[in-house]
């Protein structure tokens, strides 16, 4: 199997692709930070899937007579101001976090990627136009911008995420554009043009695939900020609605307890830190591995 994967002369497309994936995985595994990151993300996904098994009591159950209890054998992370088990809420919050991560990744990265690639590839007034827009977007305070879009879309976590995605794409467009600029004049693009490939084809088949790795890296690195912006929107009433156990909202909700009932905001805080670290580590590791520079040579 290993030999099949590492074969220098694969016999099929499938073998070639899996070989590449395998090599990337191997490289990742050699990178302790990346492994840590991947484990954290895996844990997040598993927690989200098995939330009901891990914490069967659910995130909502209120027991006003058991409020603000410190961590104990019964309540590992203590209870919050409504007597809800913080552990259960953190566990169920994983689902929301995963939703945020997935939606932002699905919306903003492709949007930024495509616009950035178009901008960089065509240059000229198209470039100036798109980059003008990104300049404007980038120069707005993120929260205000997200607030406006969330407001326009209506309250709710999904809309908040869409709003965040709308505010994040310009940064990705910048990256994609910078990357495209270096690719635009490359000989393989010239070769493709000579073969009669259309601009669409060149952008989608030749340019975009090479921008994705830096995009993946950047998106993973941004995750922490995205989770926190989502929390900030929730705080302004446009994000997750109570009683959703959204981690950022939980921290905000526990702010006034921080000195006397530290566990209320600390555990969701740790959860955010852990997951962000996981994404950052993975992103860092991916950058080392996916960097086309390191792949181009033998």
């Amino acid at each position, binding site marked *: 199997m290993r030999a099949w994967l590492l074969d220098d002369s694969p016999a099929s497309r499938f073998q070639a692709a899996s070989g590449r994936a395998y090599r990337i995985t191997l490289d990742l595994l050699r990178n*302790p*930070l990346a492994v840590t990151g991947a484990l954290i993300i895996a844990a997040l996904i598993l927690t989200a899937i098995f939330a009901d098994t891990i914490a069967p009591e659910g995130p909502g159950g209120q027991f006003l007579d058991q409020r603000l209890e410190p961590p104990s054998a019964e309540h590992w992370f203590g209870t919050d101001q409504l007597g809800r088990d913080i552990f259960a809420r953190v566990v169920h919050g994983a689902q929301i976090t995963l939703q945020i991560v997935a939606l932002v990744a699905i919306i903003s990265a492709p949007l930024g990627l495509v616009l950035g690639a178009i901008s960089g590839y065509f240059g000229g007034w198209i470039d*100036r136009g798109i980059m*003008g*827009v990104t*300049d*404007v*977007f*980038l*120069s*707005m*305070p*993120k*929260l*205000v*911008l997200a*607030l*406006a879009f969330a*407001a*326009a879309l209506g309250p709710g976590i999904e809309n908040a995420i869409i709003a965040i995605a709308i505010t994040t794409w310009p940064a990705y467009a910048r990256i994609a554009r910078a990357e495209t600029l270096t690719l635009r004049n490359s000989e393989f693009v010239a070769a493709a043009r000579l073969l009669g490939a259309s601009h669409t084809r060149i952008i989608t088949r030749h340019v975009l695939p090479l921008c994705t790795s830096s995009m993946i890296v950047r998106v993973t*690195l941004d995750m*922490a*900020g995205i989770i*926190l912006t989502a*929390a*900030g929107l929730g705080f*302004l009433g446009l994000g997750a609605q109570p009683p959703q156990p959204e981690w*950022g909202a939980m*921290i905000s909700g526990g*702010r006034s307890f*921080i*000195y006397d009932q530290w566990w209320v*905001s600390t555990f969701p*805080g740790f959860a*955010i*830190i852990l997951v*962000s*670290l996981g994404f*950052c*580590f993975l992103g*860092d590791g991916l950058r080392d591995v996916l960097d086309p520079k390191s792949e181009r040579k033998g």
Partner: protein
Amino acid sequence: MAFQDIRSGVIGGTAIGILRFIIVVALTFLGLLALTFFIGRVVPIDPVLSVVGDRATPEQYEVARVAMGLDRPLIVQFVSYVADVLRFDLGMSTSTNRPVAEDLARVFPATMEMASLGILIGVGLGVPAGVLAAAWQGSWVDQVIRVFALLGYSVPAFWLGLVGLAVFYAWLGWVEGPGRVSIYYDGITPVVTGLLTVDALIEGDWDVFKSAWSHIILPAAILGVFSLAYIARMTRSFMLDQLNQEYVTTARVKGVPEWRVIWVHAFGAIRVPLITVIGLSYAGLLEGSVMIETVFSWPGIGNYLTTALFNADMNAVLGATLVIGAVFIIINKVSDVLYRVLDPRSREGSR
């Protein structure tokens, strides 16, 4: 030495280049204006209500609405908005009852002071950390710096602020608490620059300076941690790029000591892109100060912006947004220009 003849480099040289630059900046500003204006209209908070309160009669409401010009067609409102902004008239803040421009002139220096100190801390620690991490790539130093930098990415700001206050103010007593200066000294220093520490020094008032310093250092340090994370990461990756370059080997072949290879050769080449990074994170700190300012009761633009947001004070929100945006654009463009002026590679060659 390396930059001895900076002055000889000219941006684009010609008047056309400068004109083009101005047009680009102006268009960006116009876009920013349009976006802020759009935001003001789309937010589901009635700006009139924030002026008249919830118990006003319909007549009072209508009078205020007309007074605020909200009865006119959108496009007319936008045009007059742009015209006003060009005259530095950002309208009246409905929550402070003062011209927004005046408010901003008051709160902006406070944020600038904190952000500037923050960026100094961020640069002072982040750049060496990044350089060291790159020089010792893969070693434990590198790992520690990377993990620390990543932590800086992931910790919620207000959480760090509250914990910082509890530890350094309440528990250890190393710093003074929230606010800009002790109430004893509030308002006694004449405003020259608006930066309290600087003003106190100009005035030669040590007590005020000490109090102000003791107040600013903690929030600035926390801001610094955030910029540090970004700056250290970027420095590291820039340095790694350079250290793999052939000219670094050349320097080693000459027998140049390792510290010189790193700090003079490799670092010399990344100074210019670093300026952009630092500029961007400086602008980022202006924006990122929102949460920190709330925690530290810092009378800055972040605080102003949140208060305005909560009070549906749209003029103030737009004004603050505009100022932050303008700073962003300016920093962006200035670092572009610096890039071109400072980097010998982008200057017109003699070839």
